[in-house]
């Protein structure tokens, strides 16, 4: 039974006013601009775009600001916004081999064509807090080096010659890629849908699952074959023009995980692969995604499913942090009537329990009396 309860409007209004004030903080300090957020908190913006599954730096920066830096709240705002927009279509698949590379490393080949390019990385920093950054620091302009631009083939293509590594991954010809934003999830799920879900999945959740595979829960012997970050063209075919249009460029992070594989009844010994592709500069997420993608291919490769990271329904159903936060956080909303009903039930059960105990306690006495 639902019981309508009125009241709380004034409290809600005032709470939101208070939120706006606290979000603004000290009025004597200048307010953050969106340019400052996209420019100086760029990786926060990237994470919101990746998990909000919407590429738009300005909107993601606004979401970060509105959410007071609460990432999941910002992701939620972006997801809510995307539902208000019409859909113009699906792009052609991006060509990561043709990327304008800003970082590219391989842990499997030292001297690979195109080289190891560290780019703007946290790697090899000492993780010591820098007091200079507390002020208005003015770093030196970056070094430059002129060099003939070289082709940068994907590492997977280099190994492919020997036939010791599996191919990129295929689906039946002419199969239209599935879309989790349009269809309800069904298990078992094909790899295209899993990749879409993982790409927008929560970084922390995928990181923990990826870590669990390294610690022995579904171990699959990974190497970071290649990680590349940079900009790719986005192209689309539209009915009004008979050539593909270039819409501009987006930054993505791609991870090719290469996994040693001793073979199974289905597949001979070789290197298998996991794939990660994420909006923005998000190396940790792309690596975690690739580990999870590989783990979730267990049944395709004839492996035993023994660990959480290999359980497709478990991983995919819990990877989305907007769904997760919705269900967890709804617990704090009024459940007064539900709770009253439960309270009545628990009281009754307790009464029955006490009565049973009383009855049991009286039984031996009666027996004694009979003796």
């Amino acid at each position, binding site marked *: 039974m639902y019981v309508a309860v009125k009241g709380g409007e004034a409290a809600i209004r005032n709470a939101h006013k208070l939120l706006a004030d606290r979000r603004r903080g000290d009025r004597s300090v200048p307010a953050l601009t969106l340019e400052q957020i996209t420019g100086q908190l760029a990786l926060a913006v990237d994470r919101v*775009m990746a998990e909000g*599954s*919407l*590429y*738009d730096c*300005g*909107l993601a920066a606004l979401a970060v600001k509105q959410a007071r830096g609460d990432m999941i709240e910002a992701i939620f705002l972006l997801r809510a916004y995307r539902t208000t*927009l019409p*859909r*113009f*279509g*699906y*792009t052609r*698949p*991006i060509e*990561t081999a043709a990327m*304008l*590379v*800003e970082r590219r490393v391989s842990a499997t080949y030292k*001297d690979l064509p195109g080289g190891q*390019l*560290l*780019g703007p990385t946290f790697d090899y920093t000492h993780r010591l807090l820098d007091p200079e950054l507390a002020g208005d620091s003015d770093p030196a302009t*970056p*070094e*430059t*080096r*002129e*060099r003939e631009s070289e082709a940068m083939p*994907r590492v*997977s293509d280099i190994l492919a010659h020997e036939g010791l590594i599996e*191919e*990129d*991954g*295929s*689906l039946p010809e002419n199969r239209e*890629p*599935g879309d989790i*934003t349009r269809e309800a999830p069904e298990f078992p799920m094909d*790899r*295209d849908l899993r*990749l*879409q879900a993982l*790409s927008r999945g929560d970084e922390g959740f995928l990181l923990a699952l990826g870590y669990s595979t390294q610690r022995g829960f579904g171990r699959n012997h990974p190497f970071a074959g290649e990680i590349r970050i940079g900009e790719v063209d*986005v192209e*689309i075919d*539209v009915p009004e*023009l008979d*050539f*593909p*249009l*270039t*819409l*501009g*460029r*987006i930054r993505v992070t791609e991870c*090719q995980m290469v996994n040693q594989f001793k073979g199974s009844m289905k597949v001979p010994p070789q290197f298998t692969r996991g*794939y990660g*592709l994420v*909006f923005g500069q998000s190396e940790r997420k792309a690596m975690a995604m690739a580990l999870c993608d590989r783990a979730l291919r267990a049944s395709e490769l004839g492996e035993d499913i023994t660990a959480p990271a290999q359980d497709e329904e478990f991983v995919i159903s819990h990877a989305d942090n907007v769904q997760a936060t919705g269900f967890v956080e709804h617990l704090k909303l009024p459940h007064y009537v539900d709770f009253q009903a439960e309270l009545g039930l628990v009281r009754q059960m307790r009464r029955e329990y006490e009565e049973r105990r009383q009855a049991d306690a009286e039984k031996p006495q009666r027996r004694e009396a009979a003796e």
Partner: protein
Amino acid sequence: MVSRQERQATLERRREAMAVMAAAPGETLMQLWSSAALPEEAETLRGPETGLVTVRGRMGGGGAAFNFGEATVTRATVKLATGEVGHAYMLGREKTKAKVAALVDALRQKPEFETLIEEKILAPLRDKLAEGDAERRSETAATRVDFFTMVRGED
């Protein structure tokens, strides 16, 4: 008669021009547009309007396609009094930029404007984009690892 090859070349030039405008910063395009002082009269057939496209990737980089996220896109279509129709599609939400790009696409179909647009708008945009890319490449190149091997012992 226009040969197939010529028609193909015209299409390719148009495709490239639209790509350059889409990639350009809105501000730069607007500045070049105003200084080119081209006629602005046109009927708006569609938009400018903002919507979404679903971006696709490929498994393993080169395998089967999958949908991996969405991006905002703004589009516009205009028609000149003389009948030329111009289109624009670009990432982002800049409506004025899309409108101007559609106008430029329509105007450059007229022989009298093609060279002017090439010189005053497209060439400077192309240069700016190339300059930005070259800078990015050389900054990245400076972080390239040059491995060297330490020789141990005597030989």
